[in-house]
């Protein structure tokens, strides 16, 4: 059914639309265009996540939720801080066995998300993709939830399928939205359009409202795929919001350092998450940082 995007407050987006123990997808890639305001709000409202699905390359967004103890299971192609090293809370939780990991490989993850977005129950993997020999663990052998073998009915050969990804809720960050809920990305859109469509409920946090989408938009998500949106300037911080501000190197570096220990993470959490985005803005000196990190137009 075509959706009608509702404008809501950040708090209400989470309180009304994210059920406890849902499958939650996170948009963006690495520390770019992450739905950080929504992630912080999930932590404030302590919403447990049944399965977290960071879109293809997860970062501090997923790491924070795992660190806050809210994630039972995480489906990953990549979860790390890229140029800032491993994801410390994911690492600690996976090593301690307190989060279940569903490893997918990158192409399969992309195909599974695209299948979910297109209303298909599964996708074919490339021919020749099979478990490793010699009994060493590998994808797909370690992930029987998402990978299954069939006989290719056209050739009789063995072939792997991957299950579609269809989160209950997708959390997306973008730069622009118009009066009809159509969303615009000034820079990369990664797998955000696919993630938005694959989810039952799509929540968008956006930098700014426009009467009509500006021509700077490189890609657009139609409003008929959006359930609700909230306007949060700086909502992708400490990551970048392409075309608006660059990622905050100082902040990310400090997180990567602090989150190596339990108490360091708790210190970050105590200082930064607060009770509202206004508190986050004050603690992170958001306005100053956003201004200092102002990004030129893309391209």
């Amino acid at each position, binding site marked *: 059914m075509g959706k009608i995007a509702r404008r809501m407050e950040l708090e209400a987006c989470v309180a009304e639309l994210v059920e406890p123990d849902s499958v939650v997808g996170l948009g963006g890639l690495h520390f770019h265009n992450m739905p950080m305001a929504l992630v912080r709000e999930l932590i404030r409202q302590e919403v447990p996540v049944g399965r977290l699905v960071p879109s*293809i390359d997860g970062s501090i967004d997923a790491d924070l939720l795992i660190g806050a103890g809210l994630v039972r299971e995480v489906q990953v*192609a990549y979860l790390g801080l890229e140029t800032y090293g491993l994801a410390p809370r994911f*690492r600690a939780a996976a090593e301690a066995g307190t989060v279940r990991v569903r490893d997918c490989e990158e192409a399969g993850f992309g195909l599974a998300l695209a299948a979910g977005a297109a209303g298909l129950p599964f996708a074919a993997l490339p021919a020749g993709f099979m478990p490793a020999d010699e009994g060493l663990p590998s994808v797909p052998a370690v992930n029987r939830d998402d990978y299954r073998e069939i006989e290719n009915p056209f050739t009789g050969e063995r072939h792997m399928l991957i299950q579609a990804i269809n989160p209950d809720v997708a959390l997306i960050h973008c730069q622009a939205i118009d009066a009809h809920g159509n969303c615009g990305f000034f820079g990369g859109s990664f797998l955000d359009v696919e993630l938005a469509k694959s989810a039952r409920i799509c929540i968008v946090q956006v930098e700014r409202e426009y009467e009509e989408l500006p021509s700077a938009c490189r890609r657009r998500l139609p409003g008929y795929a959006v359930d609700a949106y909230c306007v949060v300037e700086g909502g992708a911080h400490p990551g970048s919001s392409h075309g608006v501000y660059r990622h905050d190197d100082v902040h990310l570096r400090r997180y990567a350092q602090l989150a190596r220990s339990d108490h360091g993470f708790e210190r970050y959490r105590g200082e930064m998450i607060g009770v509202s985005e206004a508190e986050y803005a004050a603690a992170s000196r958001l306005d100053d940082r956003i201004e200092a990190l102002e990004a030129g137009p893309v391209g």
Partner: protein
Amino acid sequence: MNYSVAELMAVVLSRRLREGDVMVTGTNAGITCSAALVARACGRPRVRTIIGAFGTVDPTVELVPASGADQSFLPGRVVTDLISTLGDQVRGLADVICLGGLQVDRDGRVNLAVVGDYSRPDLRGPGTIGVSLIARLERTFLYFTEHDPRTFVERVDFVGAQGLRPGGRGLEVIVTPMAVLGPVEDGSRIDLVSIHAGFDFEQVQARTGFALDPSRAVVTEPPSEEELAALRGHPYGMSLATMTLG
């Protein structure tokens, strides 16, 4: 002639690029983008680079950002999108994929997922990223900013990808700040290809967790004047001269 380790690594990779190659790269792409720069200047003008996160073909960036999804990577000769670039790799329209790893073993397997037991790992890495792509692309280049014995192991703890495929296809070259590794002639295993000037066999063997063949310890051919000129004639190539690795 003086050159930095990063410059040497870029030149080593550039020599593996053939005319018309399409090379996919992303995070920490300073060295790989520079390799393409050198190849293009040295007789293979049609070598192309794709930034995987955006599908940017031949990005027009001045300085290569560290992050593979930085917005500076967006302008390029052609920009498609992430999902079609994934498809292009699976389809075989790209030739080379450049990656790092947590572990590589002498059979050419690559692991970015876990060290230790899968269900209760000693070290949980980022994931299995790129595995089916390594399996599909004709050639894989691995590059590491440290030559670490924990990286080069006898046997990986998890098979992210079987990098080396039957007949020596697949994993073509591994470059580190100390040496070049790669498949032996019959493609049966990974061994030394060359050692960078300034290091000796014992040093490399001490930092490699599987046995290397000392008879293969030739010196990595240093960058030629032409190669260095190509590198240093462009802002991002020039940045390699002072790049700190590791």
